[in-house]
């Protein structure tokens, strides 16, 4: 699955294993683009989860899937900082702001959209630094940047506590287009199907919600 799911997935898998203790799930985290390329060349993956509908759709069009891509959650973004609390309003006071790449990550794209909609983009444009992935945004914030835009799921992860005290502000979801988290089933294996279905179960939704995802879709 895509990298932004690093934090929720172990939780979901744990819960899943409570119900199906015999099914062992290998979690492979990588960027959506890489995974898509790999699946297109026959990577032996069973379920693909992406933070973006683009990649699942592409796979679907190429005929690699057993199901249509389905949205199982919507992501949200937050302003994250270790120094003090930032909001969209006072973000112009930050000397540097880390975002993940708008071109390749939906969270980065959403961040830029929000800046534009909040009319601060032109003021902070020159202070943006781009990280390859959302976790890299955290590294940037830790080492240099005053603030960073991350997926909200991250600030709920337990690993973030390693960093000590931190601040975050959710960005109003009206300011950016929805970040649809797509899932598709790639194989006929029974276990895969079970896991795929589990994603849309109440239990899974509860966990996802706890991690800041919006599960009120459709």
């Amino acid at each position, binding site marked *: 699955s895509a*990298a932004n799911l*690093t934090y929720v997935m172990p939780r979901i898998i744990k819960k899943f294993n409570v119900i199906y203790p015999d099914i062992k799930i290998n979690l492979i985290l990588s960027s959506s683009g890489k995974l898509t390329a790999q699946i297109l060349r026959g990577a032996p993956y069973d379920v693909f989860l992406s933070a973006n509908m683009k990649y699942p759709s592409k796979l679907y069009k190429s005929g690699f899937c057993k199901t249509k891509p389905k949205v199982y959650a919507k992501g949200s973004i937050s302003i994250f900082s270790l120094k003090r609390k930032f909001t969209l309003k006072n973000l112009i006071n930050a000397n540097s702001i880390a975002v993940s790449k708008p071109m390749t990550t939906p969270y980065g794209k959403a961040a830029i959209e929000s800046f534009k909609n909040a009319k601060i983009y032109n003021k902070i444009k020159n202070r943006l630094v781009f990280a390859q*992935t959302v*976790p890299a945004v955290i590294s940037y914030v830790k080492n240099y940047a005053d603030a960073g835009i991350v997926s909200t799921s991250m600030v709920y992860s337990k690993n973030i506590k390693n960093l000590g005290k931190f601040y975050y502000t959710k960005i109003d979801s009206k300011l950016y287009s929805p970040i649809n988290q797509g899932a598709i089933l790639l194989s006929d294996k029974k276990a895969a199907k079970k896991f795929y279905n589990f994603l849309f179960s109440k239990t899974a939704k509860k966990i996802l919600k706890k991690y800041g995802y919006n599960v009120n879709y459709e």
Partner: protein
Amino acid sequence: MNFDFTPFILSFKLAFIVTLFLLIIGIPYAWYLSVTKSKIKPFLEALTALPIVLPPSVLGFYLLVFLAPDSFIGKIANDLFNIKLVFSFPGLVVASMIYSFPFMIQPIQSGFESINKNIIEASYLGGKGKFITLFKVILPNIKPSLLTAIIITFAHTVGEFGVVLMVGGSIPGKTEVASVAIYDYVENLEYHKAHIYSAILLVISFLVLFSVYYINYKQKRKYDFY
């Protein structure tokens, strides 16, 4: 905290196999490059260096395309040898070999180019063929270059990551090498684990490298003594 040593074993196994294979291929190829007077020599030389110019993940992407089961090479490997070249350990070996190719070739070639031609002639005149001359006279006399080639290739394959990730797909126990595992920990903000894994990787690598250099150092001192 429980450690999984499999990624390390995979890493060093991969590095070892890649270095060995490249050595076998690299020596004759570097030799050819060093002796040929052909006009295509600079062309081949430039070509040889190209794999390192591409970013590893991009090279990995292209390799993925070329090695995939439905590609020409993938088909051949599959049909003839029943080997899958992507998302498998043999695939990692092939991909790493391509990426690390220049690191093996170039130092060896430069060693060959600096060797005193007289001793090669002396060996031929002793009735020794090219093969024996290569192993008994030429290679022992370019030891510093050979060492450089082996160590750069080895270390680089251990640290290799972009290509391996792309072609191998980090399947635990099969293609998830140490570098990928560490990367995952960093991504997962599990810095503590990442530090420990990095430290282990560094320590093992250091020990391997140190042993090689130390043996080399001792040997040289032995000679200096006379």
